[in-house]
């Protein structure tokens, strides 16, 4: 896994600080070319991993990458599924089962029909879960997707419900069908880790808020630090700046002194912000800070493998 991953919140009008900023961003990134320009800018600076929601508009980014295979041969996506609001709004309109039906493949594959129909009838989640994963992954066909994440709202909902099997089903399907490592995004790292272990997901990639002020770190900063020291999972830090509440240098300096943080995901809209984040990470999260085995920290920003 690369050390620095590029996130996508800024492209979709998601800003945890300000709805006005969020709206300005969704206007700015209305045309997909504006998104691609920023991704190119990051790519040219060695940031080649795009950790992105399976939002409909990402399909256009994927199309662009597919159409230019020589430029983007080393480019990789870390899809984060599902785009939850799509489902939540559908549930309000069609009810729970109606919403699931709406997103299942509607034609073609006999296999899909069998998996889906049987699954709905027997209440066996395996078929339906794998179908939903496949439908979300379709847009990335032919592209590199070495890690596939399950979004935090789903992870944390399943975690709260005690729906442990879903994590196993997700991990197995992502590994088997896509040759990818499963990843889990969560706001509840301390609660999730033992459950993933119980579900048989070994050394999981877990992405969570890791920031100096403890913003959306359920269980508290100290507990996160203790877990990081203990290892046994591959930590990806998000919300390092706590939506802008912590100055960039202070935020990254703090992150840099934590053990076993394998990667950091960040969002930026301008070349200067991308460059300054990159430089801060190179300076303040040196390779020596890595204590995790096989984390790929030895290379500056780009490394091999998922």
């Amino acid at each position, binding site marked *: 896994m690369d050390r620095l991953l590029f996130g996508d919140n800024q492209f979709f009008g998601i*800003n945890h*600080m300000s709805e006005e900023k969020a709206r300005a961003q969704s206007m700015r990134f209305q045309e997909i070319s504006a998104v691609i320009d920023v991704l190119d800018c990051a790519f040219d600076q060695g940031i080649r991993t795009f950790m992105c929601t399976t939002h409909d508009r990402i399909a256009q980014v994927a199309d662009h990458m597919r159409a230019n295979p020589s430029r983007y041969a080393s480019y990789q996506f870390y899809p984060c599924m599902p785009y939850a*609001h799509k489902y939540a709004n559908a549930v*309000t309109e069609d009810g729970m089962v109606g919403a699931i039906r709406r997103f299942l493949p509607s034609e073609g594959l006999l296999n899909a029909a069998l998996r889906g129909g049987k699954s709905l009838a027997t209440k066996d989640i395996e078929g339906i879960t794998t179908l939903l994963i496949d439908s979300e992954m379709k847009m990335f066909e032919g592209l590199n997707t070495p890690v596939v994440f399950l979004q935090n709202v789903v992870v944390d909902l399943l975690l*709260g419900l005690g729906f442990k099997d*879903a994590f196993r089903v997700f991990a197995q399907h992502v590994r088997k069908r896509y040759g990818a490592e499963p990843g889990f995004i969560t706001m509840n790292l301390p609660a999730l880790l033992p459950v993933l272990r119980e579900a048989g997901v070994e050394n999981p990639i877990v992405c969570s808020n890791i920031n100096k002020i403890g913003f959306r770190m359920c269980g508290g900063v100290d507990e996160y630090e203790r877990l990081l020291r203990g290892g046994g999972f591959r930590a990806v830090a998000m919300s390092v700046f706590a939506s802008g509440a912590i100055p960039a240098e202070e935020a990254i300096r703090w992150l840099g002194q934590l053990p076993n943080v394998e990667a950091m995901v960040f969002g930026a809209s301008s070349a200067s912000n991308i460059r300054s984040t990159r430089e801060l990470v190179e300076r303040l999260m040196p390779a020596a800070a890595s204590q995790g085995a096989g984390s790929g920290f030895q290379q500056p920003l780009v490394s091999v493998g998922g």
Partner: protein
Amino acid sequence: MTTLPIRVAVVGLGKMGLSHLAIINAHPDVRVCAICDASGYVLDVLGKYTGLKTYTNYQSMLAEVELDAVVIATPTSLHATMVRQALERGLHVFCEKPFCLDGDEGEALVQMAAQNGLVNQVGYHNRFVGAFQEVQRLLAQGVIGEVTHVKVEAYGPVVLKGKGGTWRAEHGKGGGCLYDYAAHPLNLLTWYLGTPQGVGGTILNPVFSEHVDDEVYSTLYYPDGVSAQLSVSWSDESFRKMSTSVTVLGKLGRIRADRQECQVFLRNNAVLPEGYTQGWNIRYTTDLTLPVWFYVRGEEYSAQIDYFVAKIKMQAAADNVNDFASALATDKVLAMLVADAAKGASTTSGAPVTAPKKKRFIFG
């Protein structure tokens, strides 16, 4: 102190019910003893994979399972009966919003909960949002002086085309933008200003729906010339998700708040609260939000459940945030809006401003 763990059942496993279930099931002081839903699918899947005890019949569940509290997240039209049955058994009740739509029935439930000393709470989660709490704090201190006008708004992308198969598309079941969306900003309004004396100019208009309203506008009147306006649509795709906001104008300043931030403009003669300056002040969610023990979809959803549990633990049933009485105040405003909209505008001709919409035929 109530004996721990507190034994809870969750009733109604739609979007809100699942969310409440995930949150309360993760609470260290709670044991979820049963879940109940009339439709089998989600219930059966949950029963199969989580081991929770399942019921399709609410009354059988109440009769068979020893409980301390219930979380009710069924369609609104079922709230009153279910809440009553729970209170009769001495259970503390957390009920989804809106509370029960029928004022008399609501009043009886308020009395019943009070007489039995039971914790009673309704899911108006915005009262647990840091930025909206800050508005209340500033208003209570009189920071912007005498309030002259309040604007409450909510927009989001729920109904974007002309169909819909769930209870939310049926008026009689508590569906529609008024009950689903507008109830939230109205609840904030009644928190800040109390129950209005009257309402006027209410519009309940379908945009895409056949049987219910998709947009709601109204003016609400308070004593001494204070007024408020409500502007709500759930058919606005320019919003990624539901967005609720409130703007308060006072003689000494102005406050605008949404879930993310609280922007306060204070004039030079305002009495400044600690940390505030003249001119613009912005407080972000990162400053205003207290951490929660478990996060699913926003701190406020966890915080309201934690509050409910804490109240049960302390056996403190009086005057809690979002108690039935406060939710009933919102119900009453909802009823006023419905009556006002039905009355229509005053016109010179006496005829309605626009004829009711009818299906158009070929020559129609």
